[in-house]
């Protein structure tokens, strides 16, 4: 429309598109030659590329590690299974009642006692979780 100001934002957007498309369609040969000019030589350019990619991978690695640590911390603070919050005596009682019916479990518990291997609370928790997974107990530790 006559007298209407040009849309400079639109014009700039077109220029950006054109410049970027030109870069993306530049041959490998030209890209590498231009990079060699900018960085001093092709090897320095390649080294810069490797550093950037390594740095990005390192950032992701650190994030994943932090996420895994956070997940572990959350799992420790809020056990999945309510039965794991029972007292140690109660946990022992549940396992022993199953041991009376399950020979393999009884043998394992007996062997541990003979070898004076103190079963830790974590050991009891592991068995409770296994019993829950097998459907032998409910989430509160009651036999099904």
């Amino acid at each position, binding site marked *: 429309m006559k007298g209407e100001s040009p849309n400079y934002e639109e014009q700039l957007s077109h220029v950006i598109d054109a410049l970027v498309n030109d870069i993306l369609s530049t041959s490998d040969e030209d890209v*590498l030659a231009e990079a060699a000019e900018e960085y001093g030589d092709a090897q320095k350019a390649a080294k810069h590329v490797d550093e950037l990619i390594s740095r990005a991978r390192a950032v992701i690695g650190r994030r994943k590690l932090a996420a895994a640590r956070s997940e572990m911390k959350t799992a420790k603070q809020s056990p999945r299974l309510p039965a794991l919050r029972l007292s140690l005596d109660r946990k022992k009682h549940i396992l022993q009642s199953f041991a009376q019916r399950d020979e393999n479990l009884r043998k394992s518990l007996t062997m541990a006692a003979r070898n004076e291997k103190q079963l830790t609370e974590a050991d009891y928790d592991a068995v409770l979780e296994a019993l829950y997974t097998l459907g032998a107990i409910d989430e509160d530790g009651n036999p099904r």
Partner: protein
Amino acid sequence: MLGPSPVESATSTVAGADVISCLSTADVLRLLKVGRVFALGTRLDPDDLFQEALTRVLDERRRCPPGVDPVVFVANAMRSIADADRKAIQREQAALAEAELTEERPASGKTPPPEVILTDAERQAACKKAVDDLFGLFADDEEAQTLLLGDLYGHSADEIRQMNDMDETEYATVRRRMRRKMNRAYPKGWTT
């Protein structure tokens, strides 16, 4: 054009690590050059822009559909990140202007508040300056200015060649000259 945003499908997209492993040294160097252009009007260093795009791809926050060129995919990611930074700057500027003009704010009506008009006008002025600066860079290169004029109005490479009776070699030569001049003038990214 860079093409429409890829439609993302959870079941058929390409893993981020695979996208990155597809990029050759030349591809990454291309993307760094692209970063210099997209950096205009942002607070981002071109290397940081590329790196942020890369981490989003590796983090699977952006997933590449099969069949899409990984270079184009990463370039589109960089464009999105740059656009988001520019919008954030505009919001911050609008908030600052709002804070300064609070006492003089007109009664609500259909006219946008003065601070928004101010920001729109500032944006247009900044875009005009960027384009004027670019033309200034190629002040002694008539052929480059011709191509830039074609770019300004959204003409394709083919259209620009036809309008100016250039063959592909001549066109490529001028583009190469323009890239080299921009690389030297804006090694840390296009700024105004």
